[in-house]
């Protein structure tokens, strides 16, 4: 504007300075932007209407007055004096000199001052002073910077040539880099070239210019210093600023959790299928030994109940484990046994894995059922009792040897009728089938005896067991 005004002064159409000044004054008055034409003595030669608010002068009181007459103190300040003097005397050019002041009715404003000298043919010196109100822009900038700072996800602002203009705190933190290693660099050159991914190049260089955005582009990469991560990228192109905003969400943990969930779900399905299989096999096998529908129903439901009791214990225990004593106690209680009155348990604390728990529960269930029907806890017994005693010892290979004796008292002669063949098979096989060793049923001095000798691997004893010397 000053240049074109200068040309006007030099134009052949206006030969006398006075006439030129009139023209300039007319132009200046018609402008929206605050603009002042000053003489070197700081008298206002011309001013646009919008300058009045900043000067705190009535619009009609500007021309002909000195800046010293302005209502606002800024115009009398050494700062402004220095600017005008420097431009007038030394032909200096002032560009975007920032002033933040409370301009009374206009409120707190940020103003950028531009000034340059204008010399007429008759060597009159003027200073053209323009004000640009930058308040909204600065507020907007501060606002957007705060938004960017408040984002928890790493964030990059890129130029259109894909150089990093700036990054936020989380970016530096997540990727363990410093501002100097990032700003001004091409995105593809960051770190060990980890962003130099063909698909990302395609998105940034081909897709983004056409679509102005993309969302949820996944990058999985070995990032220097932080290991393998999965990132989701969202980008927005800002056309008028020629910038690209790139938000980077680290979804590594999320992905990991998703995979974990899939594995768990698969495991759950596997277990459900196995359980259904077991229940069906149990029903088939129970049918074979049943003399009637009633006896089938009774045995089958009692066995399912035993499985449910084990499941309950496992759910309550740490890492789905259960104490051997608890497993046996529940089975004896389920047939009406009373601890210390009709049964006694004695042995070191032993925590069993799920499969060991089921094996011992099935064994104890069949023994307890048999005791209630034909053994020490049946009406055939006199002062009947069940003693269950076990001990453990190291067995090499990190295994623990377990010897458990189930001993019944109160029967003078062996029961005339034993349980079904299937019940006996469960007693003899449940533990040895999985863990080796033996489980032998016999008739002792005054009742049924079952001796189980087996060895359990560390994985079937979830908590370290203190083995007896």
């Amino acid at each position, binding site marked *: 504007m000053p240049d074109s005004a200068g040309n006007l002064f030099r134009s052949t159409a206006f030969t006398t300075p006075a006439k030129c000044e009139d023209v300039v004054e007319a132009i200046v008055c018609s402008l929206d932007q605050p603009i002042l034409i000053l003489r070197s003595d700081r008298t206002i030669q011309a001013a646009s209407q919008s300058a009045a608010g900043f000067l705190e002068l009535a619009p009609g009181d500007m021309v002909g007055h000195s800046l010293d007459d302005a209502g606002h103190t800024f115009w009398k300040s050494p700062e402004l004096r220095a600017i005008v003097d420097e431009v007038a005397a030394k032909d200096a050019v002032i560009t975007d000199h920032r002033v933040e002041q409370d301009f009374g009715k206009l409120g707190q404003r940020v103003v950028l001052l531009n000034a340059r000298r204008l010399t007429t043919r008759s060597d009159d010196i003027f200073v053209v002073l323009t004000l640009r109100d930058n308040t909204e822009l600065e507020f907007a900038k501060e606002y957007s910077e705060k938004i960017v700072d408040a984002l928890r996800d790493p964030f990059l602002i890129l130029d259109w040539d894909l150089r990093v203009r700036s990054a936020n705190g989380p970016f530096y933190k997540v990727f363990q880099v410093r501002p100097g290693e990032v700003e001004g660099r091409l995105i593809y050159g960051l770190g060990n070239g980890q962003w130099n991914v063909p698909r990302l190049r395609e998105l940034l260089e081909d897709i983004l210019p056409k679509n102005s955005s993309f969302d949820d582009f996944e990058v999985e990469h070995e990032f220097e210093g932080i290991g393998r991560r999965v990132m989701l990228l969202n980008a927005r192109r800002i056309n008028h600023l020629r910038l690209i905003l790139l938000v980077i969400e680290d979804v590594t943990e999320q992905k990991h959790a998703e995979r974990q969930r899939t594995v768990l779900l698969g495991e759950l399905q*596997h*277990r459900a299928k196995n359980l*259904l299989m077991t229940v069906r096999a149990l029903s*088939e*096998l129970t049918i074979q030994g049943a003399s009637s529908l009633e006896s089938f129903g009774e045995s089958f439901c009692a066995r399912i109940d035993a499985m449910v009791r084990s499941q309950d214990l496992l759910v309550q225990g740490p890492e789905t484990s259960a104490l051997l004593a608890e497993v046996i106690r529940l089975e004896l209680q389920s047939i009406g046994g009373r601890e210390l009155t009709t049964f006694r348990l004695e042995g070191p604390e032993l925590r069993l894995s799920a499969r060991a728990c089921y094996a011992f529960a099935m064994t104890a269930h069949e023994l307890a059922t048999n005791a209630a029907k034909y053994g020490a806890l049946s009406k055939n017994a006199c002062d009947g009792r069940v003693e269950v005693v076990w001990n453990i010892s190291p067995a090499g290979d990190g295994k623990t040897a377990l010897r458990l004796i189930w001993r019944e008292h109160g029967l003078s002669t062996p029961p005339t009728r034993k349980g079904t063949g299937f019940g006996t098979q469960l007693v003899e096989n449940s533990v040895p*089938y999985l863990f080796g060793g033996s489980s032998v049923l016999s008739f002792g001095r005054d009742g049924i005896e079952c001796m189980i000798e087996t060895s359990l691997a560390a994985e079937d004893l979830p908590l370290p067991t203190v083995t007896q010397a």
Partner: protein
Amino acid sequence: MNTPAPLDGLKILVVEDELLVAMDLGRMIRSLGGEVLGPVSTVQAATALLQTTEPNGAVIDVQLGAESSAPIAEDLMAGGVPILLITGYTTEMLPASLAKVPCMSKPYSRTDFRKLMQRYFRQA
């Protein structure tokens, strides 16, 4: 019946870590006239058993607790012994070496399984 039982004279190895399922499999095999080898619940026990006896067929659970039964299955296949796999997982999760072996997903239909055993072990 005048015709011999479908699995008459055949020794079928059963490798399955669930005792009840193994017992039930054994019963099915016996009801078809077959002889049961095992059942066993570990690779180690199966290997020991195979040193003394040669089966005419095998029913093998793919997963035995924490261990995979693939080594036994592969050994038997190499020796020309027909095997049937059962799995609680989906059949897509089988190791590549066993991808072509007939496989039943748990819980399988007993009728289907009987038919499969008859056809497969008898034919071989």
